[in-house]
């Protein structure tokens, strides 16, 4: 999992996966921005969906990986899983921020305001704060195994908010639209737009995989440096 066995080969793989993610992103975002017709009701502003929805999806995925990494660490006490959890939480936090920002821009164009105390927006902001707390907790503990153990617990408890974010639009009334893809029954979106949206979700997921790998490698190097710098007993 460290991926640092052969630095030359590792760099090659990283460059290849990064290039693949970059090409996929350029192609799918370009199709989303100019290749498909605008939404009948919202017009061109709806194209921000091709960034907003994949970012929100990646936030869910990243925090799920943090949950899995945390549970695996608690089970196996292997720091490699802690590195996965921490790396994924950082990426998840970034994409939650992107989802909030892109949602604010979309909201300004369609609702006339950057922010509304809508259940989906509010619970997403809370999700952001929970995982910011997760990273702050990690930053405040020196011992690696203790840091891994405590942040794993917070990663498990914090994940409780993820289904609340997703289903908040069904449980409470608000400005944010109900789910259009992950919902009971068929998706309520035009099939062409859905296909382009799914292509963007796939390319964002490639980007996530690349970022996760890079971040894990960085964390592995940091751990090795810490071990090297630790005073011998």
């Amino acid at each position, binding site marked *: 999992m460290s991926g640092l066995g052969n630095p030359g080969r590792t760099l090659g793989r990283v460059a290849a996966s990064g290039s693949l993610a970059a090409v996929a992103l350029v192609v799918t975002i370009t199709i989303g921005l100019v290749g498909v017709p605008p939404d009948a009701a919202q017009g061109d502003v709806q194209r921000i969906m091709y960034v907003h929805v994949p970012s929100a999806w990646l936030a869910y995925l990243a925090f799920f990986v943090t949950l899995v990494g945390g549970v695996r660490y*608690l089970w196996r006490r292997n720091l490699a899983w802690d590195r996965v959890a921490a790396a994924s939480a950082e990426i998840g936090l970034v994409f939650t921020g992107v989802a909030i920002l892109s949602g604010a821009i979309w909201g300004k164009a369609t609702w006339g305001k950057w922010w509304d105390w809508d259940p989906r927006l509010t619970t997403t902001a809370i999700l952001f704060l929970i995982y910011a707390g997760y990273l702050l907790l990690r930053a405040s503990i020196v011992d690696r195994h203790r840091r891994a153990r405590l942040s794993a617990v917070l990663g498990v408890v914090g994940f409780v908010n993820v289904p609340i974010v997703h289903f908040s639009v069904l449980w409470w009334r608000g400005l944010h639209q109900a789910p259009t893809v992950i919902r009971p029954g068929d998706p309520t979106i035009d099939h062409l737009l859905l296909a382009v949206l799914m292509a963007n979700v796939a390319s964002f997921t490639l980007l996530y995989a690349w970022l996760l790998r890079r971040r894990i490698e960085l964390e592995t190097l940091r751990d090795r440096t810490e071990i090297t710098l630790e005073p011998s007993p």
Partner: protein
Amino acid sequence: MSLAADVAALAAKDIRIELRTRQASGAAAALGAIALVLVGLAVGPDADRLRQLAPSVIWIALLFATVTVADRFERIDRADDAFSALWLVAADRRAIYLAKVVSLTLVLGLLQVGLWLLAVALLNLSLRVELLALLPIIWLTAWSTASVGALALALVSAAAHRMLLLPVVLLPLLVPTLVAGVGASVALLDGRIADAAGWGTILLIEAALFCGLGILLYEAAAAPE
């Protein structure tokens, strides 16, 4: 000793210390009262507006009071490395968590009762029989808050800047409890008993979920090095 006997003995220890010192409940009650008075001053003498704001003010005051109470409880346990001894003595470590939940629930529940009585006087709430239905809501909220609070305390106990980190970790996790608590009490004050019962059910699920997670994860969170 059985788990229940361990929990009872440890919770009794916390409550006995609190009864003798009254430090946590005293500071939390003062904090809650100050919050109510400050909101009254900020909003002005508009009785209807104060009544509308009452549930939100009470629950937010409670959240901040929770930080004070939880921190005080934790400090007593960690003083003179008493927690390490407790960890070694306890046959079942879940008892330490459950005892903390019981004692925190008791203190936070009583604190809420006091805050609601104060709100009747300061925020012009009318006393009605239906408001008795607040009692189960108060205790469910206290249970849910205590379940998260006891776990969050264990998480930050080893961290640098513990007192700063506790609200950062604890308060976002308590938002579902805050939302359900405010929803239930607003519905009760408006006389919508069925809606309040719905929010009460959500509170029960949240409390059971957080308590269950706490039982599962406390040993990993609290184990001394």
